[in-house]
């Protein structure tokens, strides 16, 4: 048995123990016993003979302990300046200590079992109960040093870590700087996985940073003693006492929050709300994501994002996000740095991310860090988990539509870990309920993830991310649709020194779809579309000084876009093979940003990103004279370019500026200005983003999109930071958004520029958010008023949409309110309620009818002049956990709930069709009833 040797116990801990817990008392008794055993009677009278010359406290303690049965409890840091110079001969302890602490503010107390407590200022009464009240509020954090911590219970360990004084850096006089830099990783103590977004801060002075996606942090503080507070969502708050003498490293392990009920008074997220410089950023961890009820009960991160202010979608069948008036293709969706072009399964009902692999999600909708670019509206940064570095574990889940399996563990303990996960559907049973003629229908999807993280040494880490997803559906065995993402990325993180580290990423992303039909042998065809991109990114993070932390880097992405191949299937097929020429382009950017802390209250983050886009051959490009509509008749010349030949270059700076002024600890104002350029666009003539939409690269005839956004936000935290509130306003303009002409054909179009129109847009809005992240009752309430309007900007398009005036975009939903509430009844049972209201989206309704081809038919005029009825939905779910025994092999949980509790027929669209000669108007609801769901999860 390992014996535990306590030197000192914090008075706080002691008083807490005495006050609350019989069990803790037992512990103290046990400890007492152990020490007693070890220090068995050495000197019957406990008389002491010592001589000290400049002796530190340790020497004094060791000497006395060696001669007597006394055992000392003390905080070594309190005594670090104290040196002893005296000698005594055969004196009792009290005399010795009186001598030692004469003329100092130190006190001592001797307990009934030969414990000696050394304190500063406060006098410990060994008759504890009588003096508890006098001790209250006076205590300091005391030092407990553990020499052998192999088999201790975690609770003791945390207390120990929190109370230990860490000496950081070498105290060398020749370094005159008043500041020193602490760097290190924040990790999960149980799994060894890095924790992103943890906030590390000191209260006095108020300095704070957040760990990056690798868990890495760097904080610059004045030399001396500090208490570092570390907080992260879903983890227990902790702190570290440090004595900072020079630059140094400190890794911090955080404990998971097993019991969410009592812990966490302040969470990191709330403070970052006030202190972060970046505005309009929403971060969520997987625990939050899993609480929100969604249809079919599968945790779905895109659906949860839709509950946030400023994030909308055209309807329930679509996971295409419209962020602050942007279209769905203006979001950069990154999964561990890999671009995901189609983030949904099953036409858009599910998001394509396995909740077991996702660690956290960050959505930047206003100020976008300079390292990101290429999309106008937002960046959705999804961080995947790394896998448990210490032991093997797994998860399995069974739901109505999907089931999933996840397994993770160390390859080399504490160094290399993997996580592998897969999901698949068995939605075919749903299709089995269809009428006979659809019995041959099939729909299936899957996704697979593999992440490997490897620590080469303390300065080098490697991360491998592999992801693939596939969807296939076939209705009535007529036409088969399939699409999939494939992504592979390799990341190398290298620390050059304490102040500079770099991340080097290379990877390959692919998205493709195909449509095929073999029902008619003569027309049997396969149509395919694909995007391939390979990229290199180098990102550097440089902590120049406490006032400046820099980020710079460059990245380059090579696109190969296959706009469409159409080919016959089978010998009988007369389909003529046709290929729209491949497109190539190189998008490169360099960026530099500086986070300038002018005062702890006033921080400016300024960044510039210069992007260069080259459209490359081989390609044939139609030439049109200026000032005429781009139509096939107006092509004056076709220029042909050879492979790799430069066809067109677009370039320009993008500015990213944000600033924060913190008026008080819980109130700040932030402002930002952002510009963005986008070189790849979705062409779609459907309202919802559809799996058959195509992407198009900018070329000489299609100029890049350009947008800018101004925003201003007010952030106020209430009730000891447990409630956070914010108001953000924004105004945004967008140029060269692609719209299409009436009746445009987008697939297999060799002259696509003739069918699209340049559109300008403007969007503005105000977003209110009240959030309570902790406590039995937690959740958020948001309200947004926003508008987005488009206007045809192309006078030569040949067709003037809505007379050239502004008209509302498809996703213009002025009023929107959301409530997400979770109530934790006890440790094993929680309830969630989710309510959403939005104004109905605009729709083009017929304004008249005419008789043609023996049927009444509808006549349309202005685009989006009407709205579908408003949308309102409430969902409810219950999470039932099995027991929380830590060492149990299997932990299971149930999620049971109802989507659309009131069974409201929320309109997805309204349309008129000619049927049997008559004209009928319909309102289509995706989910026309309450949908119950149940999910079973096992963690092993």
């Amino acid at each position, binding site marked *: 048995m390992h014996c535990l040797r306590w030197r000192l116990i914090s008075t706080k801990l002691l008083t807490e123990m005495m006050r609350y817990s019989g069990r803790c008392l037992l512990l103290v008794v046990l400890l007492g016993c152990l020490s007693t055993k070890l220090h068995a009677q050495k000197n019957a009278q406990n008389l002491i003979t010592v001589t000290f010359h400049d002796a530190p406290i340790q020497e004094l303690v060791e000497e006395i302990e060696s001669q007597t049965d006394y055992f000392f409890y003390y905080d070594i840091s309190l005594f670090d300046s104290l040196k002893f110079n005296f000698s005594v001969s055969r004196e009792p302890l009290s005399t010795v200590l009186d001598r030692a602490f004469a003329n100092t503010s130190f006190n001592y107390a001797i307990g009934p079992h030969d414990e000696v407590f050394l304190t500063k200022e406060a006098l410990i009464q060994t008759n504890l109960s009588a003096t508890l009240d006098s001790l209250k509020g006076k205590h300091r954090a005391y030092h407990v040093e553990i020499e052998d911590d192999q088999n201790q219970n975690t609770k003791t360990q945390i207390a120990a870590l929190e109370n230990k004084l860490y000496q950081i850096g070498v105290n060398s006089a020749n370094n005159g700087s008043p500041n020193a830099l602490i760097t290190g990783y924040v990790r999960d103590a149980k799994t060894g996985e890095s924790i992103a977004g943890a906030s590390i801060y000191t209260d006095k002075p108020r300095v704070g940073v957040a760990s990056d996606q690798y868990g890495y942090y760097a904080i610059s503080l004045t030399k001396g003693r500090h208490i570092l507070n570390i907080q992260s969502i879903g983890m227990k708050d902790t702190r570290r006492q440090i004595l900072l003498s020079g630059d140094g490293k400190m890794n911090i392990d955080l404990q998971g929050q097993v019991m969410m009920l009592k812990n966490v008074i302040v969470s990191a997220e709330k403070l970052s709300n006030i202190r972060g410089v970046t505005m309009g950023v929403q971060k969520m961890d997987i625990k939050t994501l899993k609480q929100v009820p969604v249809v079919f009960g599968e945790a779905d991160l895109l659906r949860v994002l839709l509950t946030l202010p400023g994030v909308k979608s055209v309807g329930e069948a679509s996971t295409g996000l419209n962020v602050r008036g942007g279209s769905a293709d203006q979001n950069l969706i990154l999964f561990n740095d890999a671009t995901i072009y189609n983030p949904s399964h099953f036409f858009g009902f599910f998001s394509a991310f396995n909740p077991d692999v996702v660690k956290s999600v960050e959505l930047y909708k206003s100020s976008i860090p300079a390292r990101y670019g290429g999309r106008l509206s937002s960046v959705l940064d999804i961080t995947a988990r790394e896998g448990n570095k210490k032991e093997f574990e797994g998860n399995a889940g069974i739901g109505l539509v999907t089931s999933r399996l996840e397994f993770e563990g160390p390859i080399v303990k504490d160094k290399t870990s993997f996580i592998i996960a897969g999901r698949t559907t068995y939605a075919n049973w749903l299709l089995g309920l269809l009428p006979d003629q659809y019995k041959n229908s099939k729909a299936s999807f899957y996704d697979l993830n593999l992440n490997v993280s490897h620590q080469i040494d303390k300065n080098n880490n490697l991360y491998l991310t592999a992801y693939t997803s596939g969807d296939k559906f076939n209705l009535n065995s*007529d036409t088969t649709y399939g699409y999939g993402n494939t992504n592979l990325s390799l990341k190398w993180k290298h620390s050059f020194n304490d102040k500079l580290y770099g991340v080097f990423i290379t990877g390959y992303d692919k998205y493709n779809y195909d449509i095929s039909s073999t029902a008619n042998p003569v027309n049997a065809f396969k149509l395919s579309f694909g995007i391939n991109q390979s990229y290199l990114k180098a990102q550097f993070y440089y902590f120049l000084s406490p006032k400046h932390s820099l980020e710079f880097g460059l990245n380059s992405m090579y696109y190969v876009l296959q706009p469409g191949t159409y080919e016959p299937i089978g010998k009988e097929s007369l*389909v003529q093979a046709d290929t729209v020429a491949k497109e190539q382009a190189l998008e490169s950017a360099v960026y530099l940003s500086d986070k300038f802390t002018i005062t702890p209250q006033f921080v400016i983050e300024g960044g510039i990103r210069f992007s260069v886009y080259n459209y490359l051959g081989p390609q044939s490009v139609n030439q049109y004279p200026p000032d005429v509509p781009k139509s096939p008749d107006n092509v004056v010349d076709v220029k042909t370019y050879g492979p790799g030949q430069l066809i067109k270059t677009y370039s320009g700076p993008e500015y990213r500026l944000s600033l924060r002024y913190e008026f008080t600890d819980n109130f700040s104002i932030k402002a930002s200005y952002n510009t963005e350029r986008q070189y790849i666009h979705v062409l779609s003539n459907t309202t919802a983003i559809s799996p058959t939409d195509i992407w198009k690269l900018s070329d000489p005839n299609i100029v890049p999109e350009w947008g800018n956004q101004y925003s201003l936000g007010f952030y106020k935290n209430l009730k000891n930071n447990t409630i956070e509130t914010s108001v953000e306003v924004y105004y945004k303009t967008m140029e060269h958004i692609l719209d299409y002409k009436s009746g445009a054909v987008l697939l297999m179009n060799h002259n696509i520029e003739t069918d699209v129109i340049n559109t300008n847009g403007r969007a503005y809005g105000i977003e209110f958010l009240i959030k309570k992240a902790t406590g039995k009752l937690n959740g958020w309430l948001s309200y947004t008023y926003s508008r987005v309007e488009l206007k045809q900007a192309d006078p030569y398009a040949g067709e003037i949409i809505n007379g050239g005036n502004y008209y509302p975009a498809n996703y213009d939903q002025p009023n929107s309110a959301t409530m997400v509430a979770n109530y934790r009844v006890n440790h094993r049972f929680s309830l969630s309620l989710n309510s959403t209201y939005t104004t109905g989206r605009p729709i083009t309704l017929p*304004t008249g009818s005419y008789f043609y*081809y023996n049927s009444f038919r509808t006549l*349309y005029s202005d685009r989006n002049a009407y709205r579908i009825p408003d949308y309102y939905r409430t969902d409810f779910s219950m999470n039932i956990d099995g027991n929380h025994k830590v060492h149990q092999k299997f932990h299971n949980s149930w999620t049971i709930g109802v989507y659309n509790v009131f069974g409201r027929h929320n309109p997805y669209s309204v349309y008129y069709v000619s049927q*049997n000669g008559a004209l009928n108007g*319909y309102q289509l609801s*995706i989910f026309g009833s309450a949908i119950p769901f149940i999910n079973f999860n096992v963690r092993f």
Partner: protein
Amino acid sequence: MKMKHWVIMLFVLGACTDKYVANIKGQATGFLVVEGYINITGTTTIQMSRSTGLDSPVYLPETGAQVEIQSTNGASIPLSELNAGIYSDTGLNLDPTQQYRLHIKTTNGKDYLSDLSNVNISPPIDSLSWTAASDGVTVYVTTHNPAVQPGYYQWSYEETWEYKSKFGSDIEYDGSGLILRPDSDMITTCWRSDVSTTINIASTEKLSSNVIYEYPVALVPYSNTDKLVYEYSILVKQTVLSQDWYEWVQKVQRNTEALGSIFDALPSETGGNIHNTADPTELVIGFIGTTTETEKRLFINRTQIPPTIVYTGYEDCTQDTTGLDAASLNAKFGKGIYIPTAIIYSMGFPVGVSSSIPECVDCRLKGGTLVQPAFWQ
């Protein structure tokens, strides 16, 4: 792309459609609508009307207009108004090398011209074929034209079917008693016709040659219609369009027939190639092109269809029995509410008469005619 199927799938997921009536201000009424094509060999029919509001669609024929076909060689052929808003000329035989357009002068003095169009020649229909599935019969058209590629086709059709009332009647009540029904007064077998109300178009743009193989032109369901109870016939008419004409028809189809899926194309404005000569901004709905027309007829007899239950429309019909005494007969048949169907015999003696309501006995009440069409076989 069969987007419609996706909707079906949604129903299973709990989706539903409800009737919707929009409250629309400022309805677009009164636009001139011109339908038809210039058929250079045979009958050209141009149908003109005005658009109406959405809430109460009515057909408003445009009468009294002067309509003529104009040719690039200077010829002009006036059409005469056959019925209200229907302008026609038969027996045309025009030069296929010329271009043609339509000139319209409405009674309000406005003058309209369609764009000049080339003559498109419709090849013969190679065959009409059909297959029976569990829900109904699909009729396919097959054609080809080696002379032109690509080909843009549009088909319309006329269906005619024979059907019989639920109860045959060989007797009738003459006011005093039952007499044998004369052959000229038989009301059991009828023929009814209908025209296509949907747009059927296809192109061979994506194919290596101008071949249309088994394009599904019509679906005849077993339910909701009695077309397949006895004998069914379909006359498919084929016309060939120019590319811009085809694209216009496709747009009309997309705007008016192909909506209601989750990935709907956004509806767009419907204009055409007809313009007011004085005011080109006036919206005129319609596209006038020039084509020849070919046609083919197909018969399907019930005996050719796999045994299945076909809707007859007479599912609720029942018969009564009445005594043969004059009082009973008068009470039953005197007011014309019931029609006698057959005499009931017992041991060789007439004991009563069976009868049913006219809707179950007189086939004409379902919209048909007793006259067998000339083409019937």
